[in-house]
């Protein structure tokens, strides 16, 4: 299997260790990823979509046209990119007037949106690769590790467009965490948004959402939080320190990107993953490893 690879600018330019883990994992599962020449920011579902839906779709469609030229489905890492590209893909395939408008714009760039590829998120790609294959690859099950999953809003909502997992009580991510031998634990306000969308205008108040989340996670005696999206990663890993500084409590809850967890379970050495770049130390998780 091979995909047109779309890590997204947040991962590429802010959190390269996430890209590192993802590439390692995809490699272990024989999923080939191809670079997309000329790809830019997906379009950004928050700031860009808010300023103009049509420009947002056009930028997304431009990125999709690159994958179409490659003849490959798009694999996104960031949930924001997933929402943007998938929304554009679904909407433009469905609504002809919109597609005509966007193609009017793209034609000036010598491009066209044809609607010939699909957009997938990382979990979908893993599902396609086969859960058996992952199960077989898990040589060091993360037994006893209590994981609080945070799926991230843009992976499952709006569900009428994304159609991936249940928008209110999703199951796929938890299943994958269990697959790594760890235990996904229930906790209160599990679906609460990380608050990245609020960060831009109200950073302090957005940190309050991080604090609430961390309170619930620690209440559930979880060893770590697992995320899939770089925005959630920044909120929980980086902002956790802000929360600490502003006397909101000292949680010290490690935040891991799911590919990092799965790589560890598949026998990758911690050093290979750049785990030291996490702002909140992940030592306590590494110590728990069998």
């Amino acid at each position, binding site marked *: 299997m091979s995909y047109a690879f779309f890590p997204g600018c947040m991962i590429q*330019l802010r959190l*390269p260790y996430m890209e590192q883990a993802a590439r390692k994992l995809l490699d272990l599962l024989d999923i080939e990823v191809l670079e997309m020449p000329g790809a830019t920011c997906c379009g950004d579902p928050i*700031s860009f979509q808010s300023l103009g839906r049509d*420009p947002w779709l056009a930028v997304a469609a431009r990125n999709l046209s690159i994958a179409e030229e490659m003849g490959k489905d798009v694999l996104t890492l960031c949930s924001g990119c997933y929402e943007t590209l998938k929304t554009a893909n679904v909407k433009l395939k469905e609504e002809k007037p919109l597609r005509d408008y966007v193609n009017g714009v793209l034609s*000036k760039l010598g491009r066209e949106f044809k609607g010939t590829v699909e957009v997938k998120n990382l979990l979908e790609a893993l599902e396609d690769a086969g859960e058996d294959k992952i199960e077989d690859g898990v040589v060091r099950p993360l037994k006893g590790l209590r994981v609080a999953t945070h799926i991230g809003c843009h992976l499952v909502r709006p569900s009428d467009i994304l159609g991936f997992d249940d928008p209110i009580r999703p199951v796929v991510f938890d299943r994958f965490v269990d697959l790594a031998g760890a235990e996904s634990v229930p906790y209160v306000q599990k679906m609460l948004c990380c608050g990245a969308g609020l960060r831009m205008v109200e950073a302090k108040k957005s940190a309050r959402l991080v604090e609430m989340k961390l309170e619930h996670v620690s209440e559930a005696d979880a060893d770590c939080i697992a995320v899939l999206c770089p925005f959630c990663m920044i909120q929980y890993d980086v902002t956790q320190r802000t929360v600490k500084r502003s006397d909101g409590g000292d949680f010290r809850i490690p935040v891991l990107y799911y590919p990092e967890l799965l790589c560890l379970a598949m026998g990758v050495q911690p050093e290979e993953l750049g785990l030291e770049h996490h702002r909140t130390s992940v030592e306590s998780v590494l110590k728990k490893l069998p």
Partner: protein
Amino acid sequence: MKEMPEELDELIQEKVLFCYQCGACVGSCPTARAVPEYNPRRIIEKLVMGGWKDVLSGSSIWLCTLCHTCLEVCPQGVGLSRIIIELRNLAARNGVAPSEFLRSARQMASTGWTATVSSSVLRRRKQLGLPDVETTGVEEVRKTLELTGLADILEDKEG
């Protein structure tokens, strides 16, 4: 804006008027949890009561995280988060948009990325053995923004 924009009128007729005012959108709204003054139900209520000018010029619509939980739980299919997007689009077209949103968009127009490029990260990528981040698409993105009218919105604010 003296007259209600047509798109907004349509939105109110087709979606907003169905609101039961049940507050399901409030219950799990992350912003409402962090910002007590923010109440998504009241945005809808204001639109119903004719307060669209306040809504469009106010700051509340820019606080939504677009987590789309309200969209999923609304019993009447009002689709609050989508309405927020439409309202933001309308406000932006009329020159009301927070500078942070504009800055992020300008960043994109100039570099092709919303995230800022820092040399330290580029160095780290090298250390990790990751491929270079190439930026050959910038020109096309800039043109796209011009053709779709977004460039005007960004400029207005600068001027």
